[in-house]
């Protein structure tokens, strides 16, 4: 074997080849394309075939099989969850921006001058990432739903044939016209009620709540902000077993 001339010193000793680089490539493409892989072989989600699941769901990571979205027991729920994600992705399409547009130029400058092909790859991979997440999310929802259906109280019990659990009575004291709903999702004897929090996460909640004689009492004062409020119903051990939702309508002008 011959050494390149520039690797042999005047004394005849060898020199190391000049390194192409001495530092890792840390930019975002490294995050997606490990080890210098510049073009992924796996296509981004498309619009036909299994690969064309509307969510762009990828095959299961462990089995390589198509994603199992539903079982007979939880099909409806899971499909509903799937629909939400599907909808979300479709909504996102309105944000699709041509490569030539300003955002990509901005992105390109931030990433050290990526070319358009790289950016297009990046966009596809972002989409793929999202769809992979979506598939896991659907899986989580399915498994949890299955858990609840098969063993709602954590006992050894056989699968429950009913998802309806006994709900406590609800008494609301308020000058406002409200709508309210109690939803029980686990068996157990209700014992406590937590304050209701606004759905938006902002503003005051409904803190005057109590529980006695299998009845939940909630006071909703005048001036309560419009919106939906949610709170947990707890068992004696503090286990959440249901929710109460109260909707305060827009108040008419005096």
């Amino acid at each position, binding site marked *: *074997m011959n050494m390149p001339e520039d690797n042999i*010193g005047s004394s*005849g*000793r*060898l*020199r*190391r*080849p000049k*390194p192409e*680089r001495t*530092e890792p490539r*840390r*930019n975002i493409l*490294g995050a*997606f*394309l*490990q*080890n*210098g892989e510049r073009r992924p072989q*796996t296509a981004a989600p498309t619009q036909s075939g299994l690969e064309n699941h509307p969510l762009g769901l990828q095959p299961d*990571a462990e089995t390589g099989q198509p994603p199992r979205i539903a079982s007979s027991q939880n099909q409806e*729920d899971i499909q*509903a969850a799937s*629909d*939400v*994600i599907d*909808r*979300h992705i479709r909504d996102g399409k309105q944000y699709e921006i041509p490569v030539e547009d300003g*955002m990509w130029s*901005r*992105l390109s400058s*931030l990433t050290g001058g990526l070319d358009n092909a790289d950016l297009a790859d990046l966009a596809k*991979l972002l989409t793929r*990432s999202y769809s*992979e*997440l*979506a598939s*896991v*999310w659907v899986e*989580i929802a399915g498994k*949890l*739903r299955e*858990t*609840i259906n098969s063993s*709602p*109280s*954590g006992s050894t019990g056989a699968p429950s044939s009913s998802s309806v659990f006994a709900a406590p009575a609800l008494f609301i004291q308020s000058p406002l016209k409200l709508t309210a709903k109690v*939803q029980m*999702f*686990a068996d157990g004897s209700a014992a406590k009620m*937590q304050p209701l*929090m606004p*759905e938006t*996460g902002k503003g005051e909640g409904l803190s005057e709540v109590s529980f006695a004689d299998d009845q939940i009492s909630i006071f909703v004062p005048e001036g309560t902000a419009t919106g939906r409020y949610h709170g*947990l119903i707890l068992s004696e*051990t*503090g*286990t*959440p077993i249901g*929710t109460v939702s109260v909707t305060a309508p827009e108040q008419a002008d005096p």
Partner: protein
Amino acid sequence: MTITNPKKVAIIGGGCAAVATAFDLTRPERQGEFEVTIYQMGHRLGGKGASGRDAETGRIEEHGLHLWMGFYENAFRLMREAYDELERPEGHPLRNWYDAFVPDNFVGVTEKKPGNQWDNWSAYFPPAAGLPGDPLSERNPFSVSGYVTQCLRLLRTLLLSVQDKGHIPPVGTGNEGVTVAATSLITSLISTVRSDVYGSAARAGRYGQLAFGALILEAISAFQWLAESLSPQSDLGPVTTLLDRLSAAIQKQFDLLIAQDDELRRIWEIVDVLLAIVRGCIKEGVLFSPKGFDLLDKYDWRDWLGNHGAKQGTLDSAFIRGSYDLLFAFEEGDVNRPQLAAGQALRGAMRMFFTYRGALFWKMQAGMGDVVFAPTYQVLRNRGVKFEFFHRLEHIGLSSDKSYVETLDFTVQAKIKGGGEYDPLVDVKGLECWPSLPVYDRLTNGARLKKRKWNPEVEGDETSVGSKQLKVAEDFDFAILAVGFGAVPGLCSELIEADPKWQRMVANVKTVATQAFQVWLEEPVKDLGWDDPPINISGYVEPFDTWADMRQLIKVEDEKPEPKAIAYFCSVLPDSQIDEAAYTTVRSNVVTFLNRDVGYFWPKAVDEAGFRWGLLAGTDDTSEDAIDSQFWTANTSGTERYVLSLPGTLEHRISPLDDRFDNFTIAGDWTGCGHQAGCVEAAVMSGLLAASALYDRPDLSRIVGYDHP
């Protein structure tokens, strides 16, 4: 075809980095391009990872606890290739790599509670797809999408772990609450989905009380919004605002629940960390920085998380404290000065939790020397690598123009009886092992050396049978320094003087001493009050914050009668305790720990007087002196000290690819190797880089994780 005029490579040191370098340089496909000689001080390979066998009992004696993590892709690939190449015969105790490494899915941390009480948090990490060292498929797990997907899987595991309660140590009453809390809250989210199919994911997210799934969904939405916000007129405000709002909303809900449920609180702490990471990465501009996570290395990990909204309780949690223990991240060994570079901590945490394959941890089924360095030694020998044991490097000499290494000066510590190469291995129950001390009868004047129990690895040992100088172009073409960083300043004075980069490296990169002890017990830990599965648990009180149950080693040792339990403990050793009496100091620390602290793990191992010394195997002594029948070590010498990942220092590490000296490079977990933490994986990556430095057209992409952000 074999190359007839190979390039001579001298590798100094025999730890993971050195072995990885030699392994790569001598791959069969290189057709003998390199002729490699490894020069090793003393009698064994391994460096900080060296282990030995006691000559009488076959007990394994380690420098400390070594656990392999499921993300050690390069290290596992090396081991798998070595075992495959070795083709050990049927019936060999460690025939295949999977005989040598066994998945370990449990990890634990201890957390301090009010009133000086401690509690365990043991977590089960489910097997992940694939095995470490498998070829990377098209569905590359080492990507952002892989991270986030694994993140969701982790959260799912936390939520669903209730179904594996049979495997998870009980944490008191109220476990059912977690089950129902998690599942019911997700159910409420699903209920919303059912009633409002066309509602947005954000709306769904606000409905649930915990709604982990929606939380992550929102975080991913944030990434989309990020792209949207990157117009010239806007900044990243909307994204961080969203996360802040989301965090606040979730926190509010959690506060109502976690006060009464420890396990829920721990889950929250993880979520809180994840949120702080996402928030911090966006605010600091990590996503689009060419420096990747390195951008954060100027900050301490806890400080950085705190600056991005992690709650104080989370920062003080066992989960975060354990990350410091894992990397001995205490400046000067002072446990009151935890310091860990945030970027590397983040990279390490992501790789550890989200890219592991097979299992989070893999436990060796014998000593590190037996499992790692004996088979690799045998493979390298078969390939023609030469080993010069008992060669202690004293000085690296530069050429007059300071551009290359001209000489390597060694002290030769011992002569081999009959000449030739030293045969370093011994047989213990059919397994090739390294002895703790040299095989004296293979050395000239062996009887005399045996009588004085000569240990050639002891710092300051001046035993010498001569010296040797290697000269460039005669004895070597290229030299690779692969010793522990603590020895570098003493060996490289000329290089340091010649180059400012080297000056900055030795001024900034710091190491820490460690201490460890091992005990063999006459009763199983279950009888001593530990009812849970074998575990690796960290975050406990000093002087020994980490315990690993090593009962799997009983079968490969040779003690009669067999002990019923083996336990390893380790921690940092403060610089303030390092002097000539350090070994005695560690003995005292061991006695104190066993008397005062071990009762938390093994309540029945202590009585009113302290530790029940009669529990120790291998001695009839029931007094405190029984400890002398066990093993402990103070790792204080330069080559033994552990390299720290201190904030503001990692940028000063020199890469093995750096060519300031044109026939010389470095290898070790202390170099700029892409994963700047003291561990086997970093050492192997560095070794692969050092080998690449000698190639005309190196393919760096084969080093998994090198180009990780």
